[in-house]
C-alpha cells in the first residue's frame, strides 16, 4: 500500500507562503503568551492543590462557604468533569509548613458535611522555595536540551543546519505554548516534559530531512541547492508523514481515552507532532536554503 507516491511538490519555491504562515502562527502564539499568559500549576507557583471527591453531589457554593469559613476566601475552586472539586490556595501556611492547609481542609469538610463521605484524591503542596528551585531547574533543562541539540547538529552537519533545526524547534515550541495558553492548559512539570519531548521529536524529524539534503548534495551536483533540497523533502515525505501518523495514533488514543493528567500531556504531544511535522517539511530546509542563498558556501558551486 502507498499513501504518498512519487511527489514533486514545490516546497522551496513557495517558501514565502510558508514563512508567512509560520510567522503568523508564531506571532499569534507570542501574543497569546504575552497577553493571555499561562495557568501555572502548583509546581511553579507554589501553594496547595487539593482534589476532593464527594460520595454525593455537593454544590460548589457549599464548598466555597466552607473555605471562607476557614479564612481562605482567596482560594480558587473548580469542578472537574467527574464532579470532583479542585481547590487551589496561595503558598505558605503561617508555620511555614505546607501540609497544614490540607489537614485543616479535611477537618473542616468532615465537620461541615457530616453526612457525606469524601475522599481526597490528590493533594499537592509546594513551598515557595521549592517552586523557585523547580523553575530554574526547568529553564536549565530546556536550555541544556537546546544547546545539546545545537552542538550535536552543528557537529554532525554544519552550523546552518544546526541553526535551521533550532529555529524550527523554537517555532514549534512557541506554537505549542500558544496552544497551551489558548486552551488554558495548566503548566506542570509533566507538561514541560511533553514540550521537551516535542522538541526532541521536532529535531528528529528535521534531521532526517537535513540528512537527505546532505546526501543528495553529494550525489547530484548539477542542480541548484534549492532544487536538491526540494527533491530531498519529496523523497523523505512519505517517511515524515507515516512516522507522524503512527505517533499520532498513540497520542490521540491517549488524548481520548486516558485520565486528565495524561490527557494534557497527550494534547501537547499531539499539537507538537502536527506542527513539528509541518515545520520539518516546510520550514527547516527553507531556512537552510534562505541562508544558503544569502551567504553561499563554497561547498555548492
Amino acid at each position, binding site marked *: 500500500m502507498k499513501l504518498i507516491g512519487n511527489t514533486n511538490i514545490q516546497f522551496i519555491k513557495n517558501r514565502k507562503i510558508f514563512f508567512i504562515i509560520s510567522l503568523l502562527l508564531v506571532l499569534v502564539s507570542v501574543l497569546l503568551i504575552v497577553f493571555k499568559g499561562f495557568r501555572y500549576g502548583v509546581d511553579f507557583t507554589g501553594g496547595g492543590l487539593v482534589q476532593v*471527591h464527594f460520595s454525593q453531589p455537593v454544590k460548589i457554593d457549599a464548598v466555597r462557604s466552607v473555605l471562607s469559613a476557614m479564612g481562605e476566601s482567596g482560594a480558587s475552586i473548580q469542578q472537574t468533569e467527574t464532579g470532583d472539586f479542585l481547590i487551589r490556595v496561595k503558598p505558605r501556611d503561617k508555620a511555614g509548613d505546607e*501540609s497544614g492547609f490540607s489537614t485543616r481542609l479535611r477537618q473542616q469538610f468532615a465537620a461541615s458535611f457530616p453526612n457525606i463521605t469524601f*475522599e481526597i484524591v490528590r493533594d499537592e503542596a509546594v513551598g515557595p522555595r521549592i517552586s523557585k528551585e523547580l523553575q530554574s531547574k526547568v529553564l536549565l533543562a530546556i536550555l541544556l536540551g537546546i544547546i545539546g541539540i545545537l552542538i550535536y547538529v552543528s557537529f554532525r552537519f554544519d552550523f546552518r543546519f544546526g541553526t535551521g533545526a533550532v529555529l524550527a524547534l523554537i517555532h514549534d515550541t512557541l506554537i505549542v505554548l500558544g496552544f497551551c495558553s489558548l486552551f488554558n492548559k495548566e503548566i506542570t512539570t509533566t507538561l514541560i516534559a511533553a514540550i521537551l519531548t516535542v522538541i526532541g521529536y521536532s529535531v528528529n*524529524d528535521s534531521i532526517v530531512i537535513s540528512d537527505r539534503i546532505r546526501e543528495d548534495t553529494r550525489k547530484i551536483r548539477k542542480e541548484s541547492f534549492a532544487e536538491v533540497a526540494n527533491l530531498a523533502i519529496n523523497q523523505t515525505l512519505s517517511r515524515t508523514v507515516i512516522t507522524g501518523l503512527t505517533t499520532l495514533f498513540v497520542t490521540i488514543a*491517549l488524548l481520548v481515552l486516558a485520565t486528565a493528567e495524561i490527557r494534557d500531556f497527550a494534547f501537547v504531544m499531539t499539537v507538537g507532532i502536527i506542527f513539528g511535522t509541518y515545520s520539518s517539511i516546510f520550514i527547516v530546509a527553507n531556512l537552510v536554503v534562505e541562508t544558503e542563498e544569502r551567504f553561499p558556501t563554497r561547498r555548492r558551486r
Partner: protein
Amino acid sequence: MIIIIAGFLLWPSFQLYILLPRQERFLKEKLAQAVTRADSQAVLTEMVEFNRHKAALYEKRIIHLGLDLVGGMHVVLDIDRSQLSEEEARRAPDLALEVIRNRIDQFGVFEPTIQKTDKGRILVQLPGVDRERALNIIKQPAHLTFQLVEEKAKVYDALKVIDEKLQTAGLITPVVDTVSRVESDTTSERGIPGSLLSYIKDEGDELDLMIAADDTAAFSRLLLQGREFWPQGYEFRFGPVEAEEYGKVVRVYLLKSEPELVGTRLRRAEPAIYQGADLERANTWVVNFELDREGAARFAQVTGRNVGRRLAIVLDGVVRSAPRIQERIPNGRGQITMNDRRGDKAKDLSIVLNSGALPAPVVVVEERSIGASLGADAIRRGLIASAVGAIAVLLFMLVYYGAGGILADLALFLNIFLLLSILAALRATLTLPGLAGIALTIGMAVDANVLVFERIREESKSGKTPMAAVDTGYQRALVTIIDANATTIITAIALYFIGSGPVRGFAITLAVGLVINVMTAVFLTRFIFDLFLSRFEVKTLRI
C-alpha cells in the same frame, strides 16, 4: 538468548502484578469461606507465607509502580535549623533521617522510600498510607520532658500579677472580639475584658485553670506580651484540647522551667488499655513507658523528693498529663494518659517515643499525595489507551508494508518486552508519564523501520535486486536513524535534570526505549531479512 534473559528479568514483576493479586483474592475468599477455627487458622498461616513471598519479591529486580499509580504520599521535609548551632545543623539531616526511618519502620509501611536529598532535605515516600497519621508520625518532634507543676492558686496569682503589670504598662487593650463573649460570661468579674483572667473558665475542675479552646491563641498572645513578668524560673504551658459538656477547653499550667528529666532517658514505650480507678478513662488507651537505668534512678529521686506534688509529662511543649506523685516510684515506669478510644493515637505516640526525638522540628516543604482510587483508574485507562494506540500502529504497519510490516511489528513487540525487562533490571519506577513514555516509544519505535522500508522501496524502484536494495536501504538509513535518535536522547537527558520523580521516570523510559528501538528495528529486522533472502529466491520485494 536475549529473549530468555529478558523473560527472566520480567518474571518477578509478572508474578507480583499479575499472579499475586489473583492468589491474594483467592486466599481472601478462602478465608471468608472458612467455617471452623482450624480452617481459618490454616488459611492465616498460608497468608503469612504469602506475604513473606510478596515481600521477598519486592526485594528483587522488579518494575516498581510510582505513587501516582498506586496512591500514597510523597513529602519533602526541611529541618528548621534556626535553633541549632552550626555543628548541630550539620548533623541534623542524618539524625533526622535515622529517627524518621525508625518511626516508619515501626509504623509498618510496605516499601517506603526515605532518603536525604539536596540541601539537607529529607524525602519520604509512602505507598498507600493514611496521610494524617503518617504526617503525625513523621513530624512530631517528640521532645519529652518531666516538669514540676504549680498548684492552681499559684497559677491564678501569677496570672493576676501579669494582668496588673500589663495594665499599668497600658498593654491591655480590650480585644474587640471578646466584648460580645464577655457579656454572656459569668466569670467576667475576674478581670477587665480582654485581660488574662477574663478568659478563665472555671467550671468544675479543682485541679487546673481552664480556658475555652478557641481562646488559646488570644490568651497565649497576651501571655507572651507579659513574658517578663512571669514568675522567675517558671513557664506557662497548655494541655491538649479536651471536650467537656460545655465545650472544648484547654488547661493552663505553670511549670518549673528546668525539667526534672528529659525523654532521652526513655527505654521503651508501649500502648495499653487504661487500667485504673478513673471511670472517665475506662476503655481508653494509654502509653506506658519505662525509663532506662539512669533515668529510673533519677525518676525515683525526683518522685521521692516531691511526694504530694504534681509532675507534668510534657510532649513537644504540650502537657499530656500531670498526675500527682503518690509515692516514690523506684522502677522508672510511668503512664501517659490520652483521650483515645481506638488505640491509634496511643500506638503512634509509642512509635514516636520509641524512636527518639528529632534534632529539630521539621516542616513539609513539598507534598504530593494521591488517593488510591485515582491511581487505579489512571493506570487502567492509561493501559487501555496505550493498547489501543499500539494496536492501531501494529495494524497500520501490517497493512502499509505487508511482509515488512510483520517484521516491524515483531520488532515492536520485542522492543516493548526488552524495554520492560530493562526497566525491571534498573529497578526503575514506572510512573504515569512513564507509561505515556512507553506509549510514545511505541509510536516512534516504528520510525526506524519506516526509514528503512521507505529506503528499500526507493532502491527497488531504481532497479536494484532485492538483496542489494535491502543492503543499501539499511546502510543509508542507519546513519539517519542514529542521528535522529541521538537528538531525542539529548532531550531525554535534559529531562532527567528536571528531576522530580514522575518526569525522571519518563526520561528514563524514553531514553531506554530509543536505544532498544534502534537495536531491534535495525539489527533484528536486518537479520531476519537476510535470513529470508538467502533462503529463498525472491524476485520482487513486497514492501
